[in-house]
């Protein structure tokens, strides 16, 4: 909602590991029980892509600390914030890969960023105390 934001509520800490990503999905579904399925699906997809990026590219510094997840809900919107200790990475402004025009030209990778930008309704990034804080918001009518 314009001009005001509810504080983030429930929090989950997970290891930056493939095996913990489903814990994050299950937690999100529990915390967002009232969110319409279509919006929750988009939020879950963005959360999965953000976590996959931290696991793949966060390096030693991200691997050494847990990832903190926080969720917030307001009328017609829900948001999840992801705090990781990896090197500074701004998913809101990082360059997207040029789309491939044929299967022969297609190279794997880069789709996660595209999905986060397309499926979220707002994406914000802050670097605080050597940590990345990415907030993904979805809205519904």
């Amino acid at each position: 909602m314009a001009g005001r934001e509810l504080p983030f509520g429930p929090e989950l800490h997970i290891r930056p590991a493939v095996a913990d990503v489903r814990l994050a999905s299950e937690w999100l579904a529990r915390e967002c029980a009232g969110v319409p399925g279509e919006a929750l699906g988009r939020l879950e997809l963005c959360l999965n892509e953000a976590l996959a990026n931290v696991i793949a590219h966060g390096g030693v510094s991200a691997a050494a600390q847990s990832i903190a997840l926080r969720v917030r809900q307001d009328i017609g919107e829900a948001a999840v914030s992801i705090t990781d200790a990896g090197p500074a990475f701004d998913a809101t402004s990082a360059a997207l890969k040029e789309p491939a025009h044929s299967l022969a030209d297609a190279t794997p990778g880069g789709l996660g960023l595209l999905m986060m930008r397309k499926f979220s309704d707002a994406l914000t990034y802050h670097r605080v105390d050597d940590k990345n804080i990415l907030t993904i918001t979805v809205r519904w009518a």
Partner: protein
Amino acid sequence: MAIEFQDISDTLRTVSISGRMDLVGTDEIATRFAALTASSGRRVVVDLVGVAFLASIGIRAIITNAKALQQRGGRMVIFVGDNQAVYKTLETTGLDSLIPLFTDMAAAQLAVAQ
């Protein structure tokens, strides 16, 4: 995760994937998915109707196998049926411009066999 196949003819095969194609789920089926689509000249319909969640890692696996199949003279199409969420994800990521996408199985089989 489950992955099954059915050979419709000597060259036409359907490969049905169901479950969550996230980091864990895609890894579980990766080897078998690659093996089932790797034959020379094979035409493959990948059935994603039963996929409950499709992350970028799953799309990467589809692209990798479709490319490998094309390099061996084969072809892949995707069948999504009425799975709106998967359809939207494939459309949004532009995969539909790389691999033909069908909501009708008969049309998918006809197209891939040509």
